[in-house]
């Protein structure tokens, strides 16, 4: 089943508290252990983007309002500006 939406995580705000990862009902999110944010945290990222339903729970529980959620089909990188 294709993804119903996607989330974008602002790495300036994300503090890797893992609240979104714990609460995501589809286990979409994980910490990106290969990168560090400017603040020195491993930011959350979409590990399983195809499972996202854009339900919005991650944004509701995020203490730093780092998450933007879109419903629909994500434009391919070429189409993005």
């Amino acid at each position, binding site marked *: 089943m294709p993804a119903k*939406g996607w989330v974008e995580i*602002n790495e*300036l*705000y994300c*503090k*890797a*508290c*893992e*609240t979104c990862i*714990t*609460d995501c009902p589809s286990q979409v999110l994980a910490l990106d252990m290969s990168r560090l944010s400017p*603040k020195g*945290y491993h930011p959350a990222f979409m590990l399983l983007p195809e499972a996202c339903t*854009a339900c*919005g*729970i991650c*944004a*509701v*529980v*995020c*203490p*730093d*309002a*780092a*998450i*933007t*959620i*879109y*419903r*629909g*089909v*994500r*434009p391919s990188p070429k189409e993005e500006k």
Partner: protein
Amino acid sequence: MTDSDVKLVYQRPAGFDARTTHYCPGCTHGVAHRLVAEVLEEMGELHNTIGVAPVGCAVFAYNYFSFDFVEAAHGRAPAMATGIKRTLPSKTVFTYQGDGDMASIGMGEIVAAAARGELITAIFINNTNYGMTGGQMAPTTLPGQVTTSSPKGRDVERQGYPIKLAEMLATLDGAAYIARRSLHDARSIRQAKKAIRTAFEAQRQGLGFTMVELLSICPTNWGLNVADSRKWLADHMLPFYPVGDFKVNPAINAAGGN
């Protein structure tokens, strides 16, 4: 696929300024800030609001909101908010206070403001300790809870019992809406947002003093990770501090509040 098929479900509210907060990872102060910003944005009050910051972890709250904010002396936010609201009655005025600020040094101010029925809203963050100074025992610390100044657990024989501020303020005639909510999971956070909305609406209607107590986590000072802190809140704080509405002015229900 065109862009019109894409719908924005959620984005950072305009009232929550575009900068990183100083709070520890997972701290629910951020959630409370966000809810206040969302509610004021939905009510169209962003340009008509003055907040009053406390002393405590939220002492820099004025940095994180895009609307006007002032800083009060320790515990004196309700007194300052009283002055602002009486001078500028058309403004939405709220205080944002922690348990050390409101339930300890500021107990006199909050009780007096509620008793006078001041048309202000108080957002009360209860995390059962003094977060900023290193996790000392607060008036809200649970019986038996270990803090840096009660290393063997709060002994109610020596240190007394915790203060349930929401229940206490609900006994005052000046209070229009007194509620307690929790911030430990998505469902509770949604209910907290509704309560904050109801409180601000009651203020706008001029019904009296309003307060929303928000049960919060303090992972750093509790010595737990964020997931365990949220579980600790649900297991220990919720039985002692039940969520609910403790005082609801009948006019709120008549106006279709929750």
